[in-house]
């Protein structure tokens, strides 16, 4: 186990490279994320926060530079190998919740386990436990349209935890919630964080940023300030 779970070297993501409308969404970024750390990523809209989060969560490939995940350079891995690492080690939480509307809360949480295909796991039981842990023991069989925003985000968090990831990446998880609910969600995420997860949250909320151990401030695809 490496102390640094994610390390980037001159990481960049250019859209429409070489054309007149080239966008440097992320430009030569170097960061180290330590295991168990709580990081917040801040910056104006369009500065490249989501792009960075997608790349370090192995959802998107960089146009140049390197990502080391748990010490391993992932640039030469196949799509399937990268998907497997993402599935087992990364949990995503989105601003739009992104639950599957057709499935119940329980089934949504089961899904990453089913896809992962470990037959020995009782997916139903584990999903139930996770939903209880996020305070939704009474909403197991409700579908997303029947849930409030805060409840949806709790389901999403339970789903992110399903395959026991090492890092949780949350992209403005409180962006669609009122202040009070947002606070509860952040508290919930932080409680998970205490149990040894690495947690990275993109946020506009200065109060969240204040409690983070490290703040990465991005503007125009570059880190302008990094500190705790």
């Amino acid at each position, binding site marked *: 186990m490496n102390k640094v779970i994610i390390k980037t070297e001159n990481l960049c993501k250019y859209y429409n490279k070489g054309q007149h409308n080239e966008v440097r969404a992320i430009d030569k970024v170097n960061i180290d994320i330590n295991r168990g750390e709580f990081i917040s990523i801040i910056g104006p809209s369009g500065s490249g926060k989501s792009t960075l989060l997608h790349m370090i969560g192995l*959802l*998107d490939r960089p146009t140049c530079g390197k990502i080391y995940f748990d010490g391993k350079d992932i640039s030469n891995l196949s799509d*399937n190998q990268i*998907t497997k690492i993402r599935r087992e080690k990364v949990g995503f939480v989105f601003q739009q919740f*992104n639950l599957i509307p*057709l499935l119940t809360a329980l089934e949504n949480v089961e899904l990453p386990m089913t*896809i992962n295909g470990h037959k020995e796991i009782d997916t139903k039981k584990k999903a139930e436990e996770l939903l209880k842990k996020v305070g939704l023991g009474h909403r197991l069989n409700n579908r997303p349209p029947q849930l409030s925003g805060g409840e949806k985000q709790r389901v999403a968090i339970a789903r992110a935890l399903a395959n026991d990831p090492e890092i949780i990446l949350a992209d403005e998880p409180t962006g669609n919630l009122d202040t009070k609910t947002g606070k509860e969600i952040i508290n919930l995420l932080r409680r998970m964080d205490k149990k040894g997860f690495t947690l990275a949250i993109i946020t506009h909320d200065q109060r969240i940023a204040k409690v983070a151990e490290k703040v990465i401030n991005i503007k125009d695809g570059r880190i302008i300030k990094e500190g705790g």
Partner: protein
Amino acid sequence: MLDMALRNVFRQKARTALTVLGVMIGIAAVVALGSLSEGLRVQITKNLEQASGIVTVTEKSDQGLFVGMTSSELSQETVDEIMSIDGVRDATPVVYEVGYLDDESLGFGQPTLFESGVNPEDIELFTTEGAILDEGEVLEEGDTDYAMIGYTISEDLDLEVGDIVTVEERDFIIKGVYEEFGDPGLDSGIIIPIEIAQELFERDTYSAVIIYPEDLDEVETLANDIEDSIDGVSAFTTAEFAKQIQGIVDQIGFFTIGIAAISAIVGGLGVMNTMIMSVMERRREIGVLKAIGATNSYVLRMILIESAIISLIGGLIGLGIGYLGSNALSFLTGGQAEGIVTIRLAVYSLVFALFLGIVGGLYPANRASKLSPVEALKYE
């Protein structure tokens, strides 16, 4: 995954129903039309088993026995020559005409009437020793005003022993009615004494001579001998006959099923269209699936299973409708065209439906599997 695919399929109920309908119509057509050629095939096989080892001699014809027999004119001398050839166990001449029943009450689908003149003592030979009397008796020497009829005729005209049947304006008393035999030549046939037939049709020639060889293994040799030693005749064996008929049936089957298959392919295009739309609508969801760890092949399989489900449902309902349609066709044609939905036909049409679904699903499934999760997540 199957459970989720089923739910996805029934998410857009109206659209799925229409797509299923498209496949259903095509498969129903394949089954209904296919059943007719299967019916013909089964009937022919049955007849051939009953009529194995017979040589039928007609006037020389290049058009095969079927056509040959209706226009054939064999003189008395030729018939005598044929019957006296070596290797013949039994032989009997036949006069054969095709007519239509003069019965206005039958209306559309008036059955054809196969009129055969046979020597009364040789009727067993003519019916290839396989037909069973349902009621009455077989014609005897001197029964000039009597006739025997087949199952279909007796059913259609509601005739029984003792009733009168009119052929070419001459009345005959029905002496015997046969059980269903499986060959329209007998089932839709009327048998009268051969001299009467010649009188009725104003001819002194014969249509054919039916020959039973002494040695069943020598059928082909006997047929060749007859053609070699007698001028102006063609000798057909059951095997040749079978080949000819099979060829015709295969052609008919190929053509009709081909037309039906085109409509099924259109149904398959419907599946493709529906799945393309479905994938577009669910782009974001597919992005989510990938974000939580679904591989490209997982997404590919999911979409393929969905299109297979749609086409299989269409195939199953189509099979049911096609089965009903096949029965309806048999009914409308008064049993002349008997459709049989064989297991082979049922399995082929379901496999075809599945094939259409999978082929139709390949393009949308491939597109879905290649979606970039980050791009897909941007869609509302």
